[in-house]
């Protein structure tokens, strides 16, 4: 059951990454053509555009969801690579614990940073 669940979430995280990363790439590289998400200037990383995006709840949510999906997808892949080295049961448990703790910590740090950026942008 556990491997079936992990694999399913791995696939779902891949779909989420494909959509949100596609959106990110569109904003960063095609917005000169599309021109929706960057109201201040055609260049996406101009300060005014960054602040404008950070103020929107949609971007806060999508950044946090992308962070979670990318972390899960990547760390599950790393876990599979490490497990293929043939560790014993104890080492497998340690890898699981380390990756889970590391993933949760990185997610918390990233989500906090996104929240802080959003809060800061609203005060400007």
């Amino acid at each position, binding site marked *: 059951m556990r*491997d079936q669940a992990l694999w399913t979430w791995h696939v779902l995280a891949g779909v989420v990454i494909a959509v949100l990363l596609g959106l990110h790439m569109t904003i960063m590289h095609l917005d000169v053509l599309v021109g929706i998400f960057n109201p201040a200037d055609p260049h996406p990383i101009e300060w005014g555009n960054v602040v404008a995006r950070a103020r929107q709840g949609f971007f806060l949510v999508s950044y946090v969801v992308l962070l979670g999906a990318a972390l899960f997808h990547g760390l599950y892949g790393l876990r599979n690579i490490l497990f293929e080295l043939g560790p014993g049961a104890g080492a497998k448990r340690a890898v699981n614990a380390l990756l889970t703790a590391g993933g949760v910590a990185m997610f918390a740090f990233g989500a906090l940073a996104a929240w802080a950026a959003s809060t800061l942008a609203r005060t400007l």
Partner: protein
Amino acid sequence: MIPAPTDVIFRIRRFDPLARPQPAWEEHTIRYAPGMTVLDGLRLIKETRQPALAWRSSCRMGVCGSCGMFINGQPRLACNTQITHLDSLPVVVAPLPNFAIIRDLVPDLRPMFDAHVALHPYLIRDDAAEMAEPTGEYYQSPEQLEHFLQFSYCIKCGCCMAACPTYATDPAYSGPMPLTQAHRYNADSRDGGFVERKAVLSGEQGPWKCHYAGECSRACPKGVDPARAIQLMKRQLVFAYLRLYAQPCPSKVVPKPTEIKRRADVPEAPARTIAR
């Protein structure tokens, strides 16, 4: 493919845990005969030079799956491999990789068959009385048959297991043959054992570690596509986890035809030999 040679050199990997604890290579030059297979060559060496040389073989026609060996770097059936069909000479013969060696060219296939048995490779239904004493046939359309037919051609030779890079490193992984056979029954419209097999497949023994290298399908001497079966199984299990798939009820029993009469020139079926 190579032109027919006059003589053929066989390089054979020998191992006898009692007489020679370390595997060693041995060379024999034999006279080539038209149509000679690797198995024919091994038999000639055994009959004329090395009576102690050990391997498994039986049918000599690619049906029994006994003579899987590592021939010129590929898992193949020795009986199905003509010497002139190889890419180069000499003929280098070793036991199938990814298995322990019992002796010479005899691999220990027990882990493969243990994994096979653990995945319940048979029809699972709740009508035990009908299965014991059939009153008819389980209905299956030609389209339903196509869902699993190619996977039923597997002869359990172990060539796919020897070619699998995941099975080489992870003993917990069931491997291509047992997984393909589990899918063969999951895809059978007469079967109702998906939930029972899922209990094993959803864990570490399941298809999750398959990288889709596809070596199993390339190695299969019967043209079965285990890589496809494993991907189909993954999809089925993912959908089952998301509650988007439930195995349909096993097909019903169709009564035996009553109007059809036996033709006079067709002899009557012999009496049943299996005890009731």
